[in-house]
């Protein structure tokens, strides 16, 4: 079965992240297996549960939560990037939403090997 893995590097404030979320959703609607999403670089900020965005605007965290809960897709947060962006305190998920999993870069290798295609966004 054909499968995808995604790498997200864009900020949750960037409209390109909306594109990425819609693209992943479209893959799922087309019955393409999504093995996981790996958040790297500034992309880790998508996991910050304290981000406040006006209520009439797109809520990226809610969209990630929906994806994870509806389709059971692993959302891997790169630990090193998370530390560099101040999201992790004493190896605990400080202000990271529960739908995200702390993972090492090794997880990206596993995803890459298993997925038919890896899409960097």
């Amino acid at each position, binding site marked *: 079965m054909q499968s995808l893995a995604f790498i997200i590097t864009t900020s949750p*404030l*960037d*409209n*390109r992240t*909306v*594109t990425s979320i*819609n693209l992943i959703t479209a893959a799922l609607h087309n019955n393409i297996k999504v093995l996981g999403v790996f958040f790297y670089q500034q992309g880790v900020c998508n996991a910050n549960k304290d981000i406040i965005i*006006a209520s*009439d*605007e*797109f809520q990226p965290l809610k969209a990630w939560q929906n994806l994870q809960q509806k389709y059971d897709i692993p959302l891997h947060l790169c630990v090193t990037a998370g530390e560099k962006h101040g999201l992790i305190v004493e190896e605990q998920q400080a202000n990271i939403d529960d739908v995200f999993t702390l993972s090492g870069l090794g997880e990206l290798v596993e995803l890459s090997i298993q997925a038919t295609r890896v899409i960097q966004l």
Partner: protein
Amino acid sequence: MQQKSLAILNSSSSFDRTQGRDALDIALIFGSYEQRVALFFQGEGVRQLVNRQQADIIQAKDYLATFSALPFYDVEEIYVCQHSLTDRALTTDFHLDNVSVLSAGDFAKKLQQFDMVLRF
């Protein structure tokens, strides 16, 4: 209150990244403090003025609609570089009425008249 005139030089496109919105917030606050503020559009920044953009299709905030509120903050000066428009095969079909289209030379000279320039 003392006065310092501000030119905001917009050089980023409409939706990717947040430059346009962040610049607009600055324009509005300087306007509300009764400072002279002008918006300049150069390079990809001219995209922000193009008519018939539809932010809702890509679930983006339609901050461009707020441009029409600028006169209420006494932000009346909007300048666009003709050279940047021509480069992009864009016309002067804008979503705002009061845009002054200036040649590259006049655009540069107009910018010089301001005390301070912030670029986004």
